[in-house]
């Protein structure tokens, strides 16, 4: 186990795990309005191909810089983006805490795999990658100040509509 993960207070690590599990449950539930609530007001959320991330190219497939932008995305998903409906299912590994910075924020990461199931088709592997997160404590509990979804599945099967 990573030293910083081991050094974490067990109840804090439990809380962190609950955040990850709640997030996965929310984005698989179809209740898109739940999604922005996992983030701070001035959060960063990016969905970025691994190539761009590793080569230092700033472009992301989705790049949001505030919780308000996430709410705009939710509006887009619900009201403006025409798409084939699908279910998605996240399988997220245990978070690994890389470090805890001087302000107490947790820098963590976790592998994820998202399966997509269209209404008349089989379940397929849709998007596989790694979350690079910064988690902070707020009066409402732990929130993501940053969630970077760096995906290996660089050839996107047509379109990504719902939050990863």
């Amino acid at each position, binding site marked *: 186990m990573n030293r910083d993960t081991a050094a974490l207070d067990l109840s804090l690590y439990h809380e962190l795990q609950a955040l990850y599990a709640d997030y996965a449950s929310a984005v698989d539930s179809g209740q898109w309005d739940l999604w922005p609530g996992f983030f701070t007001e001035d959060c960063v959320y990016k*969905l970025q*191909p691994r*190539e*761009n991330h590793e*080569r230092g*190219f*700033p*472009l*992301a*497939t*989705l*790049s*949001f*810089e*505030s919780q*308000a*932008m996430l*709410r*705009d*995305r939710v*509006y*887009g998903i619900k*009201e*403006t*983006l*025409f*798409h*084939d409906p699908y279910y998605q299912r996240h399988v997220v590994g245990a978070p690994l805490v890389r470090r805890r910075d001087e302000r107490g924020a947790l820098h963590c990461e976790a592998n994820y795999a998202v399966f997509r199931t269209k209404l008349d088709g089989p379940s397929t592997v849709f998007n596989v990658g790694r979350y690079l997160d910064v988690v902070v404590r707020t009066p409402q509990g732990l929130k993501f100040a940053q969630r970077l979804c760096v995906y290996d599945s*660089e*050839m*996107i*099967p*047509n*379109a*990504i*509509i719902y939050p990863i």
Partner: protein
Amino acid sequence: MNPTPDTGGAPDALRWEAGDTSRIPFAVYTDEQRHRRELERFFYRGHWCYVGLEAEIPNPGDYRRSVVGERSVIMVRAEGGAIHVVENVCAHRGMRFCRERHGNKKEFVCPYHQWSYALNGDLQGVPLRRGVRQDGQVKGGMPADFDPKQHHLTQLKVAVRGGVVFASFDPEVESLEDYMGPTILGYFDRLFNGRKLNILGYNRQRIPGNWKLMQENIKDPYHPGLLHTWFVTFGLWRADNKSELRMDAHHRHAAMISTRGSAGQATGSASQVTQVSSFKSSMQLEDPRFLDIVPEPWWGGPTAVMTTLFPSVIFQQQVNSVSTRHIQPDGHGAFDFVWTHFGFEDDTPEMTQRRLRQANLFGPGGFVSADDGEVIEFSQQGFESKPGHRALAELGGREVGETDHMVTETLIRGMYAYWRQVMEAPL
């Protein structure tokens, strides 16, 4: 029994119901044989294809793998700075030897038998060419008349303009400038006006539909104001915007030009735009930075120019977001669509940030573009289920010509007029 006639067989069995190209047989999208002919006649002969941007290979030895049609090619910068495009097929056993997406090399070596090539594709080394010496005798090796000059990598003809690299398998292809024609060249030079480009990154998507549908998508100014709620609501693309549709003399390339915020100049059905159901008068952004649009001097007026260069690429300027979109067919029923977003050397950090933010509208997850891939997939599903049927492209009449409005499918009709000339010509 299927009541519609079966026209999906041989590539020359198409039935153009109206005589002209205002009704397009579904079978142009569904037949593998016809697709092979398209590759041969559009991607491998007589046409220029997009390969990449010079800025992707700034230094000698830098290379990037790319695609022309369904063939893998390598774009590389040689020692002297010249750009070469060679086919990624070893001259010996045909192996697609270059597996990395990009990198820097002094030579290309096929790992199978270590045939080595200079960066321009010339064969420079063949291991054991002169055999081995055993017991004072030379054994094996290539025949004495083996001539390395005859066995280079396929070297494509290359044209570079404004930092954009094109290649052709056809040594007889006309100049890039003649290929574009003066009208389209003007819009190309507007975007690629000699400033160095700064690569911002890539997006890739695989769209399960025929490659021509992506060309048609960007030759169809009818759909953006209807399918794309974002565009119509924020006035980025509305039927009553001041607009123009331009083409080259062959009608194969096109530019859709639009100016935001000039509503009210069109009449008739175009003025009914606010009645369309995708217009959401109550829609407001919670974070307006998505649309923090700052006009740039090089625009010279239009806020959007979408240029289709047949057959392989789309050049996007949508307000501050600029990109190339590379069409890479894979069989008749799918293509890969590779987006390269860029900026310019004189961009401020704020402008770079703005381009990145506006990129949220485009690409495989974009507020606007994600649904283009979706409708292409579902069109293909319709075509496959009844290839004897046909689509309509009759908006704005049945003829082909440039217009000063966008309530027309004339660019699609023009593309198919050209397509028919090439595809129906005898071999």
